[in-house]
């Protein structure tokens, strides 16, 4: 098990290096620069800005320099938002995204597992078909459709919740639901599928034959196997939730890293873009690793491989 974790961690290093390299050269080779919009800047000022940020050195030496800095946790200064370093900006913005993602994950798990189990216990009943149709609808209502609709109904028409912002718990309800809904739908479908598969197996028949109560069979025997597809999905899902909130953060004006990233991409803030991309990549890799470990813990067959 320790070997497995160690090997997977080592494998992550080339992935992160690729991410950094691709991000660096993509951003640098693209036309346009961070100071294009400073229309009235004189050539001298531009030159000074460029030498201040070392943009006039050869690309490879910039790359090595920057890589060295990043390895020490230093992403350099932000190009467009002077006064704070990129690391400080990330430290400021990322926790907000993390909080939003956590709430959304909780919503997705609670709703998705509940609906999936309910549907699996009465397969092909009206309850099953109804739940699964709603789940499919959830997949077809992406954040940029669901979010505005929720705002329209609950904030503008009913006036129960605030339209946007991130200050009080009331502000956090709509963004969390918007972000979590599609994931709840996926989880419901996976949980139903996983449970149905397990419930058809021999050891469940044995449990039934022993005269165990249905509740006990489901909770003690079937659930452990049935949640495996959900666990496998949770790694990428959590990564998606923590990093995929560009739209939700934009709609609800949440001061998280997603909105900051899109903004800095528009502004060609090289260092902010590369910093955010790396944060996202580390997160994706780490969460996939956690999901794999969890799977290995749940299923001895995975461990043997």
């Amino acid at each position, binding site marked *: 098990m320790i070997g497995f974790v160690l090997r997977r961690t080592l494998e992550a290093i080339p992935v992160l290096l690729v991410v950094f390299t691709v991000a660096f050269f993509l951003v640098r080779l693209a036309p*346009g620069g961070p100071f294009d919009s400073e229309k009235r800047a004189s050539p001298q000022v531009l030159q000074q800005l460029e030498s201040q940020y070392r943009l006039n050195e050869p690309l490879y030496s910039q790359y090595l320099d920057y890589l060295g800095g990043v390895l020490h946790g230093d992403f350099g200064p932000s190009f467009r938002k002077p006064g704070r370093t990129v690391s400080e900006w990330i430290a400021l913005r990322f926790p907000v995204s993390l909080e939003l993602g956590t709430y959304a994950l909780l919503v997705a798990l609670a709703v998705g597992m509940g609906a999936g189990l309910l549907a699996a216990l009465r397969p092909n009943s009206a309850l099953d078909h109804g739940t699964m149709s709603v789940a499919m609808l959830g997949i*077809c209502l992406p954040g*940029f459709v669901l979010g505005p609709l929720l705002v*329209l109904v609950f904030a503008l028409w009913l006036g129960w919740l605030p339209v946007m912002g991130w200050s009080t718990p009331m502000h956090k309800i709509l963004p969390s639901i918007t972000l979590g809904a599609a994931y709840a739908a996926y989880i419901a479908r996976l949980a139903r599928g996983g449970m149905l598969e397990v419930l058809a197996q021999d050891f469940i028949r044995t449990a039934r034959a022993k005269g165990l109560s249905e509740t006990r069979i489901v909770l003690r025997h079937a659930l452990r196997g049935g949640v495996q597809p959900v666990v496998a999905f949770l790694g990428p899902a959590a990564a998606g939730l923590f990093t995929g909130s560009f739209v939700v953060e*934009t709609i609800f004006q949440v001061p998280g890293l997603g909105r900051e990233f899109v903004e800095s991409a528009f502004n*060609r803030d090289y260092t902010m873009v590369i910093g955010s991309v790396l944060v996202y990549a580390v997160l994706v890799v780490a969460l996939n690793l956690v999901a794999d470990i969890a799977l290995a813990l749940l299923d001895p067959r995975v461990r043997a491989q």
Partner: protein
Amino acid sequence: MEKPADSNTEQGASLGRDAWRRLKRNRLAMAGLVVLVVVSGTVVVGPWMVSHSYETQDTALGATAPNWNNWLGTDPLGRDLFSRMLYGGRVSLLVGLAATAVSLLIGVLYGATSGYLGGRADAVMMRLVDILYALPFTVFVIILMVFFGRNFLFLFLAIGAVEWLTMARIVRGQVLTLRHREFVEAAVVMGLPVWRILLFHIIPNTLGPVIIYATLTVPSVMLLEAFLSFLGLGVQPPMSSWGLLIKEGVDVMEEYPWLLLFPSVAFSMTLFALNALGDGLRDALDPRTSRD
């Protein structure tokens, strides 16, 4: 799967006929099919039938609620929403199909080559796919679109490049089981070049799973396009796409909610239909995983 799914020369229960029978019994999938035919028919023919252009502005008119002249109303610039939705639907569906085709092309060729070559080449090629899987792709698509301009061709390429990974894995798995079958060995013995064997003997036999996955790729591609357009990175005004219309609707939803509601319904309904059809096809073409 011995025969490609569309073999219709055979009498009796061919795979295609069998699949169609199973599909017909799936009411949700059939409903999806009907919706899709209606929607695509409307957006293909519709723009020639309507009297309003999708980009003609009438600022004096401004935003109006649905009425006899403008069936779904007009936006704040006085543009007819119905016409814009028809054109937008064309764009959204076109992006969906074209980008799926790109991902199909890359994924099938890559996966088939990797699976057929086997050995070290296969290991290296699949390792690359694993690495790409671990990348935060939305992030890269956003960077690509921001930094390299937002033109149409690029949109297809960027989306297609993201979506081919799973396709490659599926095809490779199929090819691994196919490449030691007699008909492939016969082709090898006949001295056919590798590309011929791949293109005419192996790939046609992987079509079943490929069709299923392609059907499910179309909605996810349309989602990505709409997502990019919503962030202002996809289709640019005065062009129209459903994602862009939804974004424009959000900006004015307090005063003119119908500008948000109609495009949202059209978009979600189409996605729903595509997903329902894709699920139905999977159950129909792959009886092992279906419920009946």
